[in-house]
């Protein structure tokens, strides 16, 4: 029931595969072409609107809505308005697959959602089968592009790029030995494995320990004990903030003196609250650009704040960009046919998005991940090193 377990992913994926091959799946076969050539152009987004990731879902939703409203105010795309079909994936593989099916039967032409990698994976074959291009704004496991599906594009940095940024900072910071810890989910394991690979190839920083914990528990004393035994200069935690907060707290009360770094899934104000403000102080994080670390985003932030009454958060910009990229690709393709849109996505060169001029690599990821290092100061994540 802890929803991000790989086992759950596997079950979800099998269920999807069965659905897709059962032959009687009418809702899966129509899709792409069904919304015809008139009326609004439907963009689907499977994002978490319930469950523990729901707060991020709101940031994503607002970012998308903002882009849609802006584009519609300028006359829409190909003379048609954009409309957003939001479906709740709850960061749960099973629910996300159901949500994707619903989006397909609603007549979506491009998907602009995807937050939890584990929940996004089972939606890939559903959108692929319906010939719907996916522009994934937040989920960033390498597994998403490893299947080499023609319709999957990622505009967030990948796990590989995040690992590279982490390794770069470790070397720069003079760390000699590192302990890696993940929570056994697709997203988390991906970053940990890539980091380990990079560290071993590089050779200057030693991997003192690579271990996993089970998400959803409260007591991580055995993991803490292992870390204390390995005595690394830095711990790199690649899981989510709930367990991250507990681990930081338990490490510090066990007398851990080394540094701690967390991956982007742990970048959340709740991390500081769970760990305790004093314990969290000075913790580093690898993170893609957030609105307040992007130069020149001030007007955008104030527009967003005026429109929604709250400041933008993680993945607001990426979600905003996903919609804009979708609109651009449809315009270039002069229609909503999935294959044509895929082609125009591949052809995009230099379209301006927050992380820089956009050009997809042959495997459909960003050419540069744009990861940077944040540090917790006074209970808040602030920019430490842009790594550029």
């Amino acid at each position, binding site marked *: 029931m802890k929803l991000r377990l790989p086992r759950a992913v596997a079950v979800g994926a099998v269920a999807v595969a069965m659905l897709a091959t059962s032959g009687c799946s009418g809702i899966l076969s129509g899709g792409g072409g069904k919304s015809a050539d008139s009326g609004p152009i439907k963009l689907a987004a499977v994002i978490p609107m319930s469950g523990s990731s729901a707060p991020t879902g709101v940031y994503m939703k607002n970012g998308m809505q903002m882009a849609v409203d802006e584009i519609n105010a300028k006359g829409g795309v190909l003379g048609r308005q954009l409309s957003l079909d939001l479906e709740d994936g709850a960061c749960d593989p099973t629910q996300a697959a159901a949500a994707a099916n619903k989006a397909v039967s609603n007549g979506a032409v491009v998907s602009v959602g995807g937050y939890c990698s584990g929940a996004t994976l089972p939606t890939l074959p559903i959108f692929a089968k319906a010939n719907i291009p996916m522009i994934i704004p937040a989920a960033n496991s390498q597994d998403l592009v490893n299947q080499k599906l023609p319709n999957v594009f990622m505009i967030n940095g990948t796990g590989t790029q995040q690992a590279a940024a982490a390794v770069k900072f470790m070397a720069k910071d003079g760390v000699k030995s590192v302990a890696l810890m993940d929570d056994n989910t697709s997203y988390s394991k991906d970053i940990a494995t890539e980091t380990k690979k990079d560290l071993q190839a590089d050779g200057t920083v030693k991997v003192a320990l690579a271990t996993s914990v089970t998400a959803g528990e409260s007591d991580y004393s055995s993991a803490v*004990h292992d870390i204390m*035994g390995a005595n690394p200069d830095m711990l790199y935690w690649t899981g989510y903030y709930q367990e991250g*907060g507990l681990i930081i*707290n338990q490490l510090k009360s066990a007398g851990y003196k080394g540094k701690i770094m967390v991956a982007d899934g742990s970048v959340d104000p709740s991390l500081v609250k769970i760990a305790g403000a004093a314990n969290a102080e000075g913790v580093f994080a690898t993170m893609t650009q957030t609105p307040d670390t992007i130069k020149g985003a001030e007007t955008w932030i104030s527009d967003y704040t005026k429109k929604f009454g709250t400041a933008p958060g993680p993945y607001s910009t990426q979600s905003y960009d996903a919609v804009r990229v979708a609109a651009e690709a449809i315009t270039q393709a002069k229609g909503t046919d999935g294959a044509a849109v895929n082609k125009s996505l591949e052809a995009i060169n230099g379209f301006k998005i927050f992380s820089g001029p956009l050009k997809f690599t042959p495997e459909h990821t960003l050419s540069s991940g744009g990861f940077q290092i944040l540090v917790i100061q006074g209970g808040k994540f602030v920019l430490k090193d842009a790594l550029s």
Partner: protein
Amino acid sequence: MTQLIWNGLFVGSFYALIALGYSMVYGIIKLLNFAHGDIYMLGAFVGFAMLSSVGVIPASMSITALLIVLLLCMLVTGGIGVGIEYLAYRPLRNSPRLAVLITAVGASFTLEYGVSAVAGPNPKVFPVRLEGDSFTVLGARISVPQIVLMVIAVLLMVGLNSYIQRTSMGRAMRAIALDTKGSLLMGINVNKVITWTFFIGSALAGAAGVMAGAYYGKIDFLMGFIIGLKAFTAAVIGGIGNIKGAMLGGLLLGLLEAFGSQWLGGQWRDVFTFGVLIAFLTLKPTGLLGERVTERV
């Protein structure tokens, strides 16, 4: 080494507190009460609500406040446990086993998502956190809050054991575990005893929930799931239906986890723990202290 033992015993005492409820209920009405882990979660949330409503509590008062809240929470969760039994299990007392099992799963989901709907899906940070100095005994780092919680857990378990061994209600529970129909014929009010069993089991789980909230600091609506499974495992290791077995099983499970993680690494901890469990149960299916034909509970 001593650190591992201490870590194992500490986690194990949480497992044991919850395992007791599983074991008592199974011993008396042969029901696997899957909602039991969620009572633990509920205890944490009730404690959270009480402490939040009080406002700021000075650090010097935090232990006293926590003890009072602990007792109140035990009453509330005990009451909820009784309510669940009355609404969801009693009407099905004479139905097929599977029907009751599924109602238990249903009760579990109802509690989880009910709390999620009322309190929100985001994790909450407990308003009072037990913090204290730690010191080293024989190479193990032990903190004052850990000792406080261990003492509370041990007192609760010792209290429960003497309650069951010494009082007439305890004797009635043991009698029903042995032979429900016979007890009824001997004039024991079976429904009343079952109600008490649920009350006590749920109160213990609620206490564990408050203690976990105050010690670990984070609570969420799914926190009862994994620990519920582990406690159930502990109850089976100890011999389900046996009170002392549940306590022993909880401690043993905690130790297995601590050592498994140390020997084989974190990834293999659960494989090791549950591998040992399977091996153990094939050799002794009745568990540590369970016997086929003895009194249960």
